[in-house]
């Protein structure tokens, strides 16, 4: 019994142990003896264990992706709770909503056929969301990408991400023929709207996903080349014309000369990563609060500071296994639409992690996107779990697929 509890053969138990240790640690943090931590911690452990258990019963598909993601979410919640208990508790609530959303989308997408025929719907819905962001949008931290409703703000771009993947998939499945020119017009309209909102990270993310899928499925290979050269021209133009982009590039090349102004955030992040060493300072013993926005975009620096480089490498490795599983799902799926969906969603998470991890480590210019599943943020977490639910559907054999193509000639047994 005891041995089984600690064995690497049962990863769920390891997760429970880690979360219980973290709850104990946070309970003692700053001698507050906070009952609240205990309640929310036990709630968290229960949610993770139960949802994994239910998924094993319900789904015949891949069970690893959900495990990997629960581990990432628990690391994230531990760090956020340590930085700010209020945010931490909210994140636990968002996480439970995310899990509900996961199962909701899982059953919804599984039970409805013909997702590939709704291309117009996806485009119109994204357009509505974009326009409402432009009209009702609130400017928070340099980007106008928030809508505020009854005191709750959310980012429509997080929903559009999923819609964009569905749009690409239904175009390349080719149910409704639209001309390549119109298709590219729509894609660049997406990018243009994001650019108007100053949401450069998300624009880059959309472009990466678009390039990945068109690299695999576009039959006219020259178009890929045109798109790539177009991207270079756009990048060059935006560097010359947009002040926002120039700052990002300058602070990437040499943040040290702007350490007191625009380079402050990135240099603090580098200090935090460096001060962690191999095993970190220990949770609660570092100073991640010196970094502005540490609970959202810069959560990785906080993890590196308090859990060490090994903790940071573990986060990157979890993302790597996740991406590997995602491609594996895409390879096994027979239905072309869901194959593209699987590639798109996997690429979306993979690139998003790459953009922000590279950004906080000063490998590529910093653009503000959240680290999926780890960063604090309600709309990001909830819509990411919706996408994960869709990926879970893609990992299964779709039973209605065969009847659809050959239903008219199924023979009767005499």
């Amino acid at each position, binding site marked *: 019994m005891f041995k089984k509890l600690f*064995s*690497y*053969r*049962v*990863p769920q138990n*390891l*997760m429970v*142990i*880690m979360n219980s*240790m*973290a709850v*104990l*640690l946070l309970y*003692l*943090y*700053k*001698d507050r003896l906070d009952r609240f931590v205990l309640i929310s911690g036990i709630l968290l452990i229960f949610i993770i264990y139960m949802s994994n258990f239910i998924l094993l019963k319900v789904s015949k598909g891949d069970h*690893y992706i959900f*495990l*990997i993601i629960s*581990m990432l979410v628990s*690391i994230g919640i531990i760090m956020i709770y340590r930085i700010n208990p209020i945010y931490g508790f909210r994140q636990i609530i968002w996480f439970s909503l995310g899990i509900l959303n996961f199962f909701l989308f899982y059953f919804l997408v599984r039970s409805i056929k013909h997702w590939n025929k709704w291309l117009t719907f996806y485009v119109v819905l994204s357009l509505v969301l974009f326009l409402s962001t432009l009209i009702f949008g609130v400017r928070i931290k340099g980007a106008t990408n928030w809508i505020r409703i009854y005191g709750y703000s959310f980012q429509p771009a997080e929903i559009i991400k999923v819609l964009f993947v569905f749009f690409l998939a239904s175009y390349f499945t080719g149910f409704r023929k639209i001309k390549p020119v119109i298709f590219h017009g729509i894609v660049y309209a997406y990018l243009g709207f994001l650019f108007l909102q100053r949401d450069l990270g998300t624009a880059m993310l959309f472009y990466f996903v678009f390039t990945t899928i068109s690299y695999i499925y576009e039959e006219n290979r020259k178009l890929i080349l045109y798109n790539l050269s177009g991207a270079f021209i756009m990048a060059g133009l935006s560097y010359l014309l947009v002040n926002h982009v120039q700052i990002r590039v300058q602070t990437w090349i040499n943040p040290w000369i702007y350490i007191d102004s625009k380079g402050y955030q990135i240099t603090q992040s580098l200090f935090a990563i460096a001060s962690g060493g191999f*095993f*970190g*300072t*220990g*949770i*609660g*013993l570092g100073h991640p609060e010196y970094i502005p926005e540490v609970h959202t975009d810069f959560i990785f620096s906080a993890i590196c500071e*308090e*859990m*060490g480089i*090994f*903790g940071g490498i*573990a986060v990157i*490795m*979890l993302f790597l*296994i996740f991406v*590997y*599983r995602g491609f594996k799902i895409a390879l096994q799926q*027979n239905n072309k639409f869901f194959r593209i969906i699987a590639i798109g969603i996997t690429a979306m998470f993979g690139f998003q992690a790459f953009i922000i991890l590279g950004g906080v480590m000063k490998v590529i210019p910093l653009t503000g996107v959240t680290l999926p599943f780890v960063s604090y943020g309600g709309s990001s977490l909830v819509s990411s779990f919706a996408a994960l639910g869709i990926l879970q559907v893609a990992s299964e*054999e779709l039973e209605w697929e*065969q009847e659809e*193509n*050959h239903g008219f*000639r*199924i*023979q009767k*047994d*005499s």
Partner: protein
Amino acid sequence: MFNLLSLIFRYFFILIIYAFIFGIIRMIYLDIKAISEVSVSNTPYLKLINRKDSLPFKIKEVYTLDDTITMGRNKDNDIVIVDPYVSNHHAKIILDENFYFLEDFDSANGTYLNGDKLMDAIKLRNGDRIKLGQVEFLFVSND
């Protein structure tokens, strides 16, 4: 108290996370190994002759025959072939004293062995071609 605990726990956290990653990778490895092991085993097996992606339904490349098996469109068969030309209970491969026999269950479109329609149970030899519906298998055994 807290500081000491935190200093000790940081090693445990990293140990647990890595054990977790190791556990997942091991499970994935076993998953892949189970797929590739089938083709190297010593028991006779059925190999798909059609190109897998030319068939519009789910089918495996290799089916091992370690016991008597049934084939058909119904879910309770050992080999489920959701081909519209395959009957619900189409055919059966019987293992009898280390020999394999192919038998047809009065299927609507029949079972073919090396191009001839099957009338009675017939003993299978290495290299025989079994056709049911659009699907064609090769029977491979070591004798």
